[in-house]
């Protein structure tokens, strides 16, 4: 059935949501935002992604609602096309091929057929000057239209869409670049240029950063590098123009937006405070502070009820017009450096890594959603450039996920290092982690590694944590009871300090059963007995600084693997205390699979990374993936699958039980898949849209539940089966009910029995079939079109079609049976209302 498929590297974890200004739909029910090559449609109420509009082949740079038809959306992209979408259904309507890289897109309500785009001058990649051009969109019924009718409007402008804005009723366009404000009047075809001096006496920085135009009046607001906002009036005169200054931001103004009526101006910047200026006056301002991170874009909904701010941490905040946050759409926070690495939370199987500054994020890979943020640092974050912030550097979970250890550091100068280790206990009641112990300066130097001893719940061993530090020591921390008369408490305290010739400790790791601890000191690997903390043996065969260290698992638990920075991968046998084999590979990351013997190693050559999958007992890798990506692989992790996936080829068998995720230097999260792109796409997004539009009626509840059960059952029985449209899986009776126009349906009292029979379990089916022959007929029809069917016709259906099919015929459990009986006993008088 499945032929040999190539292993594909798939990007996951979503793209940046804050790439361009987001747009609200006319009724403010949906929020549209550009995300990488896609446009995503979110519900403003539920924060769920409803549609993903796919079609562009490069970064989407601008989106705007069609002013003529509010159900349509224009988007432009760097691939040189403008696309028109029906975003409620997620359908591409039209594509206009412009041929230039499009950096911004503007459309005016009254200028029919022509739009404005920002394109690079001379269509060069390298040039840093851009021009504003208008494009005539031809009115042809074709799907794909060439739109080459360009006319230049403004030359030498800024690339960012924020630097150009169209004024009241499209009479003028304002654009800023450097120290100049350009205003072009369409009617008079005249350009007014207003320069500012580079610096004023007070040391101000007058560079423009963004511009916005008042929707009703002749007024332009411009934001500046030093945090000032200037309101320009009377700018149709070259000399008698005036401006007033609003100053609150202490750093660059990132974006400006007028409300729909123009009576308030919104501004945001690095401080992550949304400021609302009323009537353009300096004293009437309101604030919405602590939005999380730098505000990059601000937009307002057409009905004036919502604002939204896009943030640098991959977040969109939807704000009510009374400055209350109403919803937050949060993607994977791809901050700066991911120092904690990729960690798996054993409880939720979520990926845990650095999130917002001072937080760890729990990110669900299946739903591509952030589950929650845990505040580790617990300090007020001051948004200021160049400030030395406390950063989270290490995180580790205990085997069962009941303990989380984190290390945070702040380094002011070389000598002044502030370190803090925190241990968090999982609280079953509140379903979150609570701080248990805080340890100041666990080491004199940087903490290089952190690991818990694997303990099974059965064995009553005290939880043990080992930290390795650059100060040449490793410390063992154990949970101790330090209750006293006033309050019972458990806390972590240091149990043992070990060192080896005062070399800095690089990494540490426990063997699978927790009996041995391996700590590498510079060039030497030391193995310690974890009961007595005696040094057992040392390995230092090929000299080189140890980079990674890991024990083999399961049948290979007698092996210890290490990589050195001079390009060796070594495997030591712990029984003979000798080097078993070594290979010359510049391994950057070494990651064991917790569920099998497999170990993934990522090597780095000149400008590409390779992946090797091997078992420690043989030096020959059984899977090699060359040219994984161009960047250096920074972290990798195996995440156990809930349901083992059947992988066709023997070579890729290692993917069946757990999935490998990789984080590269450029913060791209990659994974490996043997499936093709279409198969990977889940229909969940489509379904969401349907479900969203459904009203919650008793019928829906009944049907929805039924469908849900069926779906989950299917998923359980054939975890690997391809996803199919769920509509076909419904009972024919229900299908009939749903798809037949209402006016041709028989009376509800007649339908009721059919419908209820369709819900029944197989035993009672026989009698039902005798009564209702119509259903039987349908079921035969359904057999032809769908391989798998529901319980209605399973009795008479030929089971011999395939053995495979036989497996999947769902059997109802006792509880489900009971439930169905309950449903049968319910009052169905409401059906009459249909």
């Amino acid at each position, binding site marked *: 059935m499945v032929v040999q498929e190539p292993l594909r590297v798939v990007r996951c974890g979503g793209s940046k949501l804050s790439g361009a200004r987001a747009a609200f739909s006319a009724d403010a029910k949906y929020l549209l935002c550009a995300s990488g090559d896609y446009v995503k449609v979110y519900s403003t109420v539920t924060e769920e992604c409803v549609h993903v509009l796919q079609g562009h082949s490069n970064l989407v740079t601008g989106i705007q609602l069609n002013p003529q038809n509010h159900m349509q959306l224009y988007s432009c992209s760097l691939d040189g096309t403008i696309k028109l979408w029906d975003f409620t259904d997620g359908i591409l309507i039209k594509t206009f091929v412009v041929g230039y890289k499009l950096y911004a897109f503007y459309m005016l309500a009254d200028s029919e057929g022509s739009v404005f785009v920002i394109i690079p001058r001379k269509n060069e990649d390298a040039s840093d000057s851009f021009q504003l051009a208008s494009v005539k969109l031809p009115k042809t019924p074709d799907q794909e239209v060439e739109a080459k009718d360009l006319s230049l409007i403004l030359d030498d402008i800024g690339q960012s869409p924020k630097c150009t804005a169209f004024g009241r009723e499209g009479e003028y366009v304002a654009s800023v670049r450097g120290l100049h404000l350009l205003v072009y009047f369409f009617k008079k075809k005249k350009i007014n240029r207003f320069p500012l001096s580079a610096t004023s006496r007070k040391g101000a920085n007058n560079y423009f950063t963004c511009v916005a135009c008042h929707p009703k009046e002749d007024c332009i607001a411009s934001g500046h590098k030093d945090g000032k906002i200037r309101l320009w009036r009377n700018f149709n005169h070259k000399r008698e123009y005036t401006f007033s200054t609003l100053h609150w931001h202490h750093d660059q103004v990132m974006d400006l937006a007028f409300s729909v009526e123009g009576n308030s101006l919104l501004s945001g910047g690095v401080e992550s405070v949304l400021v609302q200026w009323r009537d353009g006056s300096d004293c009437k301002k309101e604030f919405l502070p*602590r939005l999380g991170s730098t505000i990059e874009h601000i937009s307002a909904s057409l009905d004036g009820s919502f604002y939204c701010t896009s943030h640098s941490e991959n977040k969109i905040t939807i704000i009510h017009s009374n400055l209350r946050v109403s919803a937050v759409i949060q993607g994977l926070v791809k901050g700066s450096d991911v120092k904690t690495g990729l960690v798996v939370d054993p409880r939720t199987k979520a990926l845990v890594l650095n999130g917002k500054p001072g937080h760890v994020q729990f990110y669900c890979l299946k739903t591509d959603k952030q589950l929650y943020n845990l505040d580790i640092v*617990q*300090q007020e974050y001051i948004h*200021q450039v160049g*400030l030395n912030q406390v950063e989270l550097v290490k995180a580790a979970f205990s085997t069962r996920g009941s303990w989380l250890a984190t290390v945070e550091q702040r380094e002011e100068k070389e000598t002044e290092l502030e370190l803090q280790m925190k241990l968090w206990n999982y609280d079953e009641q509140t379903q979150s982690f609570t701080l248990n112990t805080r340890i100041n300066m666990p080491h004199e130097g940087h903490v290089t590694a952190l690991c818990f001893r694997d303990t099974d719940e059965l064995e009553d061993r005290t939880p043990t944590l080992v930290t390795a530090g650059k100060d040449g020591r490793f410390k063992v921390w154990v949970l101790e009871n330090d209750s*006293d008369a006033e309050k019972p408490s458990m806390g972590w305290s240091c149990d043992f300090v070990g060192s080896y010739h005062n070399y800095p400790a690089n990494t540490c790791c426990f063997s699978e059963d927790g009996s041995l601890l391996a700590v590498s000191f510079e060039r030497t690997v030391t193995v310690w007995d974890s009961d007595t903390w005696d040094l057992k043996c040392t390995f230092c065969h090929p000299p080189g600084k140890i980079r990674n260290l890991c024990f083999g698992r399961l049948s290979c638990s007698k092996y210890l693997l290490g990589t050195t920075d001079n390009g060796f991968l070594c495997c030591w046998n712990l029984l003979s205390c000798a080097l078993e084999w070594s290979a010359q590979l510049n391994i950057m990351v070494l990651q064991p699979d917790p569920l099998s013997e497999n170990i993934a190693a990522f090597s780095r050559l000149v400008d590409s990374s390779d992946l090797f999958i091997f078992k420690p007992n043989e030096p020959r890798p059984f899977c090699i993936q060359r040219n994984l990506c161009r960047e250096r692989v920074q972290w990798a992790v195996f995440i156990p699958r809930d349901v083992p996936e059947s992988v066709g080829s023997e070579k890729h068998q290692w993917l069946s039980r757990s999935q490998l995720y990789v984080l590269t230097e450029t913060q791209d999260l990659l994974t490996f898949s043997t499936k093709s792109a279409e198969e990977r796409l889940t229909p969940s997004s489509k379904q969401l849209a349907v479900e969203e539009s459904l009203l919650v009626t008793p019928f829906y509840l009944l049907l929805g539940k039924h469908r849900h059960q069926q779906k989950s059952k299917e998923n359980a029985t054939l975890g690997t089966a391809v996803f199919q449209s769920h509509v076909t899986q419904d009972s024919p009776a229900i299908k009939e009910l749903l798809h037949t126009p209402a006016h041709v349906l028989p009376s509800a009292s007649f339908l009721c029995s059919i419908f209820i029979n369709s819900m029944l379990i197989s035993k009672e089916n026989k009698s039902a079939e005798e009564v209702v022959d119509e259903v039987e007929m349908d079921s035969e029809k359904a057999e032809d079109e769908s391989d798998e069917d529901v319980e209605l016709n399973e009795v008479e259906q030929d089971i011999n079609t395939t053995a495979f099919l036989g497996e999947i015929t769902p059997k109802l459990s006792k509880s489900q049976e009971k439930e169905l009986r309950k449903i049968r006993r319910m009052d169905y008088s409401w059906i009459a209302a249909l």
Partner: protein
Amino acid sequence: MASYKPVVVQSFPKLGEKITQDTLYWKNYKTPVQIKEFGAVNKIDFSPVPPYNYAVTASSRIHIYGRYSQEPIKTFSRFKDAAYCATYRDDGKLLVAGSEEGVVRLFDITGRAALRQFDGHTKAVHVVDFLSDKYRVVSGADDYTSKVWDIPSATAVVSYSEHTDYVRCGCISKLNADLFVTGSYDHTVKVFDARREKSVMTVEHGQPVESVLLFPSGGLLVSAGGRYVKVWDILRGGQLLVSLKNHHKTVTCLCLSSSGQRLLSGSLDRHVKIYSTTSYKVVHSFNYAASILSLALAPEDETIVVGMTNGVLNVRHRKHEESKERLPKKKRPAYRTFVKGRNYMPKQEDFFVSKPVRSHLKKYDKLLKSFQVSKALDTVLQARNKTPEITVAVMQELNRRGTLKNALAGRDETQLSVLMSFLIRYVVEPRFAPMLIKVAEMIIDIYLPVVGQSAVIDKQFLKLQEIIEKEIDYQTELLEVLGMMDALFATMTMKKATSLEKNKTNGILRVLEQDTSN
């Protein structure tokens, strides 16, 4: 939306012993009352009947004190030389005492003159006691003998001379009227049965025995001598159960708490230690001004009386909780004012207006929230320095925000002197030192150009300098000590090759801990 996060004030673990039930119990005594006696107090004995008067034997007198009296309510002073070991009988009516001249005297509590006088010992009698049948008295003397006396006839019933040195301590069994124990300077403790001619058991303590004690059950014997307190199991034929070495001078007296759960020992090292009789660990200890010779606990542990070599009697009375409850109760609003409107069930058409829960911020947090750094620092400095950890936490927060210098600058003389006095007081404290040293450096940088303008500030700067110099000297000395100890430990580990990997710093810490606990 996230709300303002208040400044994290670091809490440091309290050093020293942990608060346990025992520390709470044994700390619950009032400030001691000191009574001056004429000489070293060698014995204190509580009357077993209310009102629990106690007899104090010091020099040539026996004083009877009432529970709260500072003056003796009765004095027996018919001794030519020192009196020893005045002990009550079970009914609290008779008192027996030994003396330097070798005579044992029996007194009626109400009378003055001795009722009986037992002559027979040739040397000083240091220990006397009533046997539990109330009609016999046992005595031990420096002539190496111990005798049992019949009270009605005032004659010696039996005499034992098995000890080979002074008999200085003894006790009787409460369960058996014939059984008693004596301890001697010949390093032995002997158990005698008045019905037998010879001792029934001998245990070797190892040091001159200063005090012996039988548990109420009669099964365990405690002996104290030298630095050791040893517990013996009598029923198993005098097997050593546990040996405690928690004092660093001779242990002179022993005493059981009224519940029998705790054992108290007093020593010449000026400490009273309290042991749990189940784990034999020290659960609490008291510190006194002089070497302790005698110790007694009133029934229900109401009073601890300690007699010392300098003749001072130290009396501690237990605090009682009732006094606290008698405080006038603050008038509070009635319960219904709090529940007013809370139990209203909203109807379906009602429109909810939810009031956000207001978080109460400290004053410095409010100021920090509005970025008023100097004011925030002023607020925490004015708090009379009772909470230096908050002051330092705010300083740390300011440093993190990069505005510490701004907050420190621009201060006038009084403001600066407040800051300086804070520094002078806490700069050497290890938990604050890293931050405060930084603050001190900054202050010096900022105010260097104006030094010499104010006498007050200059003086404080000099003082700060002096403190820091002292601290540096102290630290170097500590390092020297540490080096010496390292050398010592290195030689120790050389001998024991097995513990090669034993960590050094840990070992030192453990030793230091022991030192401090002593």
